[in-house]
């Protein structure tokens, strides 16, 4: 069982994330915990000592009720492994602390798919993604697909991509494809010769086979981030190493209709 923490807020992104997690559980057996962080404004914070604790208890109860409402509305089959965890404070700091102290193997959160790459880059470069001790799965959409894809490019370390993703998905019932991405502005998405993927593509394929999974399909795609992002909708999950800058791979992931799991 993969110890997993799912972040819940009362919004569309969380609603989709909850139901996606339920779907994921059919392929990867999850030991699921849910969490919510109440982030009060500075003006809301009151007093010290007993007064402060009483106020925090109130805020925590409110967060608990929010989680209850969402769980009741979505009515998922995947059982929770423990009581919901509600924290008060800075959302990212609290989650990273919980991920570390709880030795979680996967963190899941929803992200409302928009055409705004900057917003996605903010998420990718936030402490939540850069400091999390485990892979971060950003849920963008629901799916009925049974396929995952490992997305690689010139700047991707094949060892990290395969090793870290297999730590989560190695025992799953998903099938795997590999896509090597190259940026090219053209009217249509192009499939290039496999040799264009070079040693990176070969290494990812070999390492995946070593981990017990032969890739069903290996493709070198050339196109714009929008074209490739649209192509990725066929997949339940896109696995990528965490981009550290606004590279084209980051834009592909921002445009991906499928959910994205970052490993590092």
């Amino acid at each position, binding site marked *: 069982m993969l110890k997993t923490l799912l972040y819940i807020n009362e*919004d569309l992104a969380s609603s989709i994330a909850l139901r996606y997690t339920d779907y994921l559980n059919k392929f990867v057996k999850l030991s699921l915990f849910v969490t919510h962080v109440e982030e009060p404004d500075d003006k809301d914070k009151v007093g010290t000592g007993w007064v402060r604790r009483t106020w925090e208890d109130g805020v925590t109860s409110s967060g608990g009720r929010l989680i209850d409402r969402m769980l009741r509305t979505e009515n998922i089959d995947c059982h929770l492994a423990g009581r919901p965890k509600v924290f008060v404070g800075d959302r990212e700091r609290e989650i990273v602390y919980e991920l570390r102290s709880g030795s979680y193997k996967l963190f899941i959160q929803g992200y409302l*798919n*928009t055409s*705004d790459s900057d*917003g996605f880059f903010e998420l990718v470069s936030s402490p939540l993604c850069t400091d999390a001790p485990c892979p971060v799965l950003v849920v963008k959409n*629901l799916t*009925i*697909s049974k396929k995952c894809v490992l997305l690689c490019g010139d700047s991707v370390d094949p060892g990290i991509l395969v090793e870290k993703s297999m730590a989560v998905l190695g025992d799953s019932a998903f099938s795997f494809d590999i896509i090597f991405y190259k940026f090219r502005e053209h009217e249509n998405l192009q499939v290039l010769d496999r040799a264009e993927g070079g040693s990176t593509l070969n290494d990812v394929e070999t390492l995946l086979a070593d981990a017990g999974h032969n890739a069903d399909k290996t493709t070198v795609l050339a196109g714009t981030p929008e074209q490739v992002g649209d192509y990725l*909708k066929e997949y339940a999950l896109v696995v990528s190493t965490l981009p550290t800058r606004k590279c084209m791979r980051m834009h592909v992931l921002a445009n991906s209709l499928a959910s994205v799991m970052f490993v590092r």
Partner: protein
Amino acid sequence: MKILVALDTQEYSRNILKEVARLARNTLADLVFLGIQEQGGKEPEARLAETLLRYRQDVCSYFDPDELPYGELVGPGFSAVKSGGWILATNGMKELTLRIAAGTSARQILAVAAESEADLVVMGCNCTLGCEWDGEMNVPLRIAKDAPCSVLVIKQPTRADKIVSILDQSVVSQDSLEIVNQLVTLHEAGLKIVGVKEKMAGSRMDGLERRMIELVRYYNEREVDAWVKMIHTRDVKEFVMNSSKTSIVALWLGKQSLLRKLFSLNMVDKLLENTGSSLLILR
């Protein structure tokens, strides 16, 4: 469901019959085939009457004879109706009524859509000369703007790989949900549900988001792959124009819809000109 199919004698009208038949078969719809002639008189124009009769046969031929819900013609020919025009009905489990009206196309189509309480108006249009229908310009456009129900303008009956449905309000009718579902099924396409918002940030779920969740649930339960995307109001025109090249765009244009203001007649005209397949206006 009742589908009003506006037809003339041009090729683009004949080309939509297969899609009409598939839609009717999947929904077991009552059908009204409507032809418009310019001048009134005692009798309907023979050419138009013959064309409608042939269209009826064509649509029936797409059904398995054992499953055909439409019966034989009632009576020897068209008979005049009080409200104007002529009618030829069929018996059978479902109605397939042929109607001919006299007057301007848009006005007559809108009047029959209202009178027959149609849930959907389907029509083709000329794709070489902008938005022409039966020799008149902008007919599909005026129908799309003023019809009391949803409107499907089939410009080219090619298979689309995606239906992009765009909404900015929380009111969505059950019929329109089902129409989108049928298009997805007919085209074996994926469905992209795109919400349009003025303000993207916001910690609480608003009416649009709630509606989008319900839509995703509705389609997932029918095993339709539905992807959600949220875009800003300022990006909607460009987004719609780009999407319409390869996908069927479905615009939810309710009374309270901001999209209604954004998509002026000129915009919808451009959209119809731009689209590579069909445009669906949902109400």
